[in-house]
């Protein structure tokens, strides 16, 4: 038995602002975050509310952020998480109270994908279950938990974005229609706020508790749209209704880019891509400004060149080179994965390109130094 301090997010309708309460709980090796919160509710504060139902990662109701990670509380052991554990509701969904968020916006989009809600015992067409059928990949695997929406940086900023779970459902319809219309599903995601809006952070696939791989599904939808036979013209389903305003208010917006807790490489690639993109624009402006010196005659230019040889300036050149290389190479990854190439191995692709970046950066910096000092 160990003692753990829980820092729990608290908010009730009518409160001016949320706050955190701390509770001390004891945890055995198997005690889950859910069980600890139930014990808090039973023994310490009966006003605490949270969602739970199945207690075995099947219903999808107990999604929350534990130390910043989106998890299912019912299968997250408390003992592994350190002496102080912070528990917060999912993001990018309207807050009801305490750890409870409103799932209405999730379902409003999810149901538009048109996936038939039929439970079957059959394998997904085209899947190759391993011996012992332990790797059935059926879309019913989606628990409708909303973890992916909480983790997605695009959901955080685009209130109309269809989001990972709904697009995974649409891909399921394409793979195995079971009476639904795949063309309809493809037309639905083929829009500005659909599959083209995804920026391949792959946080959805990282946090998904049931290996639905929504990120890969979105990449597959794009590939199908790029390669597929042009669909016969058909009435386009209405674009997603703007989510009700509380949903929008609940989105975290740009802040989501800079919250480091619980994030994986795809997310960092996403954030760095944007930061380097903005920095490059800034550099371009700076560059034009410097070129203006040429018009002031040789003296001004020579003064600038002297400045450019200073170590500080060289270091900045190195940073610039990093930005160019990162943006270019990750751009390559985004383009490849966006067309469905290498989606399954997006992380390996990222690290391979980063290896290229390191080599190119070293060579580039060495060349710079040689030019400056050799000349």
């Amino acid at each position: 038995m160990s003692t753990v301090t829980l820092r729990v997010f608290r908010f009730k309708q009518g409160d001016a602002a949320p706050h955190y309460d701390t509770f001390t709980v004891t945890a055995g090796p198997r005690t889950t975050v859910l069980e600890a919160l139930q014990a808090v509710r039973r023994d310490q504060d009966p006003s605490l509310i949270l969602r739970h139902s199945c207690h075995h990662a099947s219903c999808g109701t107990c999604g929350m952020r534990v130390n910043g990670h989106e998890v299912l509380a019912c299968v997250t052991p408390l003992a592994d998480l350190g002496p102080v554990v912070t528990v917060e509701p999912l993001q990018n969904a309207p807050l009801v109270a305490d750890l409870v968020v409103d799932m209405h916006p999730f379902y409003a989009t999810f149901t538009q994908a048109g996936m038939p809600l039929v439970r079957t015992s059959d394998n997904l067409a085209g899947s190759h279950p391993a011996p012992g059928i332990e790797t059935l990949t059926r879309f019913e695997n989606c628990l409708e938990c909303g973890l992916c929406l909480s983790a997605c940086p695009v959901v955080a900023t685009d209130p109309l974005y269809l989001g990972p779970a709904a697009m995974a459902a649409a891909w399921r319809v394409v793979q195995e229609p079971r009476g639904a219309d795949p063309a309809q599903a493809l037309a639905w995601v083929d829009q500005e706020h659909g599959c083209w809006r995804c920026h391949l952070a792959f946080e959805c696939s990282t946090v998904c508790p049931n290996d639905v791989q929504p990120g890969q599904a979105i990449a597959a939808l794009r590939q199908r749209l790029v390669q597929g036979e042009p669909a016969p013209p058909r009435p386009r389903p209405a674009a997603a209704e703007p989510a009700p305003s509380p949903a929008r208010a609940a989105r975290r917006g740009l802040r989501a880019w800079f919250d480091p807790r619980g994030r994986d490489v795809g997310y960092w690639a996403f954030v760095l891509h944007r930061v380097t993109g903005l920095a490059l624009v800034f550099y371009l402006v700076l560059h034009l400004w410097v070129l203006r010196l040429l018009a002031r005659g040789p003296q001004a230019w020579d003064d600038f060149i002297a400045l450019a040889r200073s170590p500080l300036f060289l270091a900045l050149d190195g940073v610039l080179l990093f930005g160019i290389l990162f943006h270019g190479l990750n751009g390559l990854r985004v383009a490849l994965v966006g067309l469905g190439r290498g989606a399954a191995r997006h992380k390996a692709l990222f690290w391979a390109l980063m290896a290229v970046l390191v080599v190119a950066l070293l060579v580039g910096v060495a060349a710079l130094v040689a030019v400056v000092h050799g000349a």
Partner: protein
Amino acid sequence: MSAYHVVIIGGGATGAALAHDLTLRGVQVTLVERGEVTSGTTGRHHGLLHSGARYAVKDPESARECIQENTILRRIAPGSFELNDGLFVAITDEDLAYYDDFMEGCAATGIPTRTLSREEALRLEPNLNPDLKLAVQVPDGTMDAMRLPLRFLATAKHNGARILPFHRVTGLRFHGRTVVGVQGRDLVRNRDFTLDADLVVNAAGPWAEQIARMADVDVPVVPSPGVLVAVYGRWTNMVINRLHRAGDGDIVVPQRTLSVIGTSSWVVDDPDHLDVPEEHIRLMYEKGAEMIPALAHAPMRAAWAAARPLVGSRQAQSGRELSRTFKVFDHAEEGVEGFVTIVGGKATTARAMAEVTADLVVRKLGLDAPCRTREVVLLPHTAYYA
């Protein structure tokens, strides 16, 4: 819609089915649930749409209810069940000796069966214990413990019922000895609430006794927990039962990509104090592996406990001796008007429980409104959030 207003306490399978039934009969319904709906016993159950075969020998009344409801639910909740059937497997000679009683029980209660040879059974389910003697196929099925009741709630809601999760009832309101409403705490806004009602139904499952005490009446409900263990891997496609008297760890239900082994049975006083004894987890693995050997090494996804709301004597030792059928109490018999309790049963029989309860409720309200839940097809669970 009649002017009558009924408050249902408890948002489990029973409360959900009752909200649907009463709404269809034209009654105004408000359902209050202290947590999220299905956060009591219901969401945590094994996920078995019972054929009734498990009870065919010892508890024929329960078996009959199960097979009837099994047939009705397939009709009114299409898409909610895997049509995967179940197998009762005989592993030992002792199991085999139970075969005749079992077949007789099934025949008497109207449960269709098909006996499979060892080879036929292994062809259908190659991961079964190869030592098995024979197997009997019955119309069991896999269901989603939360999403079926959500369909009742979704349909009730769209027909006008009000569902209030995160509303804990702390007391009943009286006019003399007649119950005229409930009071409690709205945990979303952190303030007290009261509701007037022409009649209050206590559908609080294993907590039903706590609610009954608020009216100074007694409901003999025995909270009887069981442990369930979910392991990674779908080792069979059918529900696998041991062909013997209902005991510990003798059912394996495939759920999505998991297999759920259950269950055990003991009795507790407080359904909010459920532990998951380590030896029960071991027992589930051990017993499960007798039917499906690969389970012994399947990594665990979760282990949890839930409390059955069994009706019966508090002297019960393990809960296994108590019937799985249900009981409706009209507390007018103890002098308290306007208050009805429904407990017991199974998630599989929730609709039937609701029918019997609603029959009593409308009779007490003086309404003439027949039950329609056998025919009305339920909305999908997603409609609960629409």
